[in-house]
């Protein structure tokens, strides 16, 4: 008996040779892979702008908007994204990209759940290509994806005019139904069967995204998603926040996890 998932058929060998994944694992980011959200990222960016006057004015404007953002979050995730990204209006693209890189390096990597990384790497080793599907901005998600060796991601993109953010988002705004639609497009382009794909998310707003996939998993779900997961009999994963702050980014090297997992799998296959 082998512990390999399946013996490769000529067709699957051909797919592997072309670099086509047999299926994908889609991950939401905020609250799913890490214990931070977009509001925290916005605070970081405004607090680290180049000039004191800019910092104070942007932070004050952002704080003034918090009640509205809270109301928007209660009503609709799409509305929240639109309202929140408006606060970035006027910031330069290069500054946002530099801050995004710094935020990723200094904050995000230390806030990723280590066990979420294990899941990503184990899924990758099992043939599920990792894909990030998130409402976070691309200038934060791109450096993170690069560090996690995730080639494919979709994130919200600001519209820039003459190098400065207009505060508007390019369509589609990544929230709710749009995530599900993007997954369907991805699946069609890469000829993968969504019924065989896994999806991980934490919020009730991700319900359309989870429903679109064959294997939805609720991660640290909010109250409503937990109830839905229970009634639909979806697996529920819990990543502990305390374990997320496991020292420096070096401790969280996903390659180590991937190597361990692959060695384990190969050992198992060799033994059988």
């Amino acid at each position, binding site marked *: 008996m082998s512990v390999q998932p399946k013996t490769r058929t000529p067709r699957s060998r051909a797919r592997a040779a072309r670099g086509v994944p047999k299926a994908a694992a889609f991950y939401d980011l905020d609250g799913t892979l890490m214990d931070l959200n977009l509001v925290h990222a916005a605070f970081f960016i405004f607090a680290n702008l180049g000039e004191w006057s800019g910092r104070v004015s942007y932070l004050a404007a952002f704080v003034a908007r918090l009640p509205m953002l809270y109301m928007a979050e209660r009503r609709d995730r799409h509305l929240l994204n639109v309202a929140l990204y408006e606060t970035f209006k006027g910031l330069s693209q290069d500054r946002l990209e530099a801050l995004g890189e710094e935020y990723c390096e200094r904050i995000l990597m230390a806030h990723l759940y280590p066990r979420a990384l294990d*899941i990503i790497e*184990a899924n990758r080793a099992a043939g599920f290509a990792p894909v990030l599907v998130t409402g976070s901005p691309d200038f934060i998600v791109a450096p993170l994806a690069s560090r996690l060796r995730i080639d494919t991601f979709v994130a919200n993109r600001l519209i820039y005019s003459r190098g400065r953010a207009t505060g508007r988002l390019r369509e589609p705004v990544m929230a709710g139904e749009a995530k599900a639609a993007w997954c369907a497009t991805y699946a069609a382009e890469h000829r993968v069967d969504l019924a065989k794909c896994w999806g991980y998310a934490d919020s009730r707003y991700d319900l359309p995204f989870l429903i679109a996939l064959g294997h939805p998993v609720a991660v640290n779900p909010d109250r409503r998603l937990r109830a839905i997961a229970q009634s639909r009999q979806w*697996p529920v994963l819990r990543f502990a926040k305390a374990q997320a702050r496991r020292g420096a980014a070096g401790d969280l090297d996903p390659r180590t996890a991937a190597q361990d997992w692959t060695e384990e799998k190969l050992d198992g296959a060799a033994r059988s």
Partner: protein
Amino acid sequence: MARPEAKLKELKQAELKHEVGARRDLVVTLNRRSAPRLIPYGDEFMFEKLPAGTRVIYPPPPLDALPDPDAAIRYALLRPLNADPLFAQLNPNMRVTIALDDISLPLPPMRRPDIRERLLNQVLQTLADYGVDDVHLIVATALHRRMTESEIRRMVGERAFKQYWPDRLYNFDGENRAELAMLGKTDHGEEVWLSRRAAESDLVIYLNLNLVPMDGGHKSVAVGLAPYQSLRHHHNPATLRDSHSYMDPKRSALHSSANRMGRLVNAQLNVFSIETAVNTQMYGGMLDFLQKNEDQFNDWDRARLKGFRWTLGNLSNDTRRQMMHQYAAPYGLTGVWAGETEAVHRQALARVFQQYAVPVKGQSDILIVGVPYICPYNVNSIMNPVLVQCTGLGYLFNMYRNQPLVKPGGTMIICHPLRDEFHPEHHPSYIEFFHRCLAETTDAMQLEKRFEAEFAINPTYKHMYRFGHAYHGVHPFYMWYWGEPARQHVGRVIAAGCEEPQVAARMGWEAADTLDEAIAMATADHGRSASITYLHLPPLVIADVE
């Protein structure tokens, strides 16, 4: 030292045969005036009139419990079988691992103090007296779910819990490669993997609880502390098909394999086994009528039964389930033995058979069983359809020695509502197994070939097993394989009182609204003169079919 069990009848083989033989009155043939019979039906009970001529097999009454369990344990530790006394094996520099059975035994969970707590207190005291500090307690879960903190606290008691949890008292993790060691291969090529902590210990003490004869012996260490790499050698359809029955270890290929592995373990490790046996005192006090012959019910029994059924019938499914899982059984300890694994297990097995065996003449065309609310894999959880299958076809069908209670090609009627309900945190892989794998095939060989390896390495299920409270990804496969001997033997399986016929159909069963309808469907096949046997639960009974 006077043996503390002196009050309990010590039976020799011939005497045991005589005592069991005298239990023929436990097989009752019903007539038209017989009372309806209680039949477990999930969280509820059916109370149904069975056809005249139906043979009902009742469990033997509980053996007397040992009057002083602590004294019996002390005696066992001081006078072990084929081994030095525990104290004589100890020195302060040694490394000791104590492994103990998990929550799957006994069923329902027993009232406090749990036998494991009694055993632990004395073993830990002995270790402390001899200055042994390097002690770890491992709950031998194998691929079962991790027990929760409160479940472990309840099982081991406050003293051990406060002293050892969580650094030195923990659940076994069969997916932590760093904590596993390979001991070698048996002469049948079976890989023997074990907890590294146990493998590197100077002394391994196993605290076992025998509820039925399939428990204990080499199955304790070699299975309880083993990962998938070891278990797949005997938890597979081919081995289980060759087991006749699970309750008769001498004729079970599953036990033969576990024995080979266990002997290899014992050749390399110093294993000190402690086995216990309990009586059948499952329901006492206000619920003791559940264990009585219905023809002998008095007015008080009938009133309690009516009130009990009314209460259960008026609760929501969730509340009823929670209420039933709160119940703790007043089991009594009937024996405790310590020492070398096989010598100890022989004694324990004899006592277990003394408790359960009932002689039965011949097989029948139709076997009726009721599946209760609990099985080893859903304590504090939901009895999902795969577990109903495992309990009905796996455990209850196998409650025999010599030959099955039902004839080859006969019909099994399983009473259970069979709802499409799963516990997503305890049984996540069961859900996919049921809705995806069983939708494609119910053939155990095909399931093993096509899906088992995929589930075994599935990262999400692995994660939920290691860090959540989920059964391992392959566990639903094992549950399905468990029913393999029954599937090979019987012709039809009918779910009586089935609320969701599509669930029965998914498992290859037929559905009937009522028990009467199920019996009518079965007799249509076997004729009006078909012989019917009802295996009366609770508690448990093993039929010695002549």
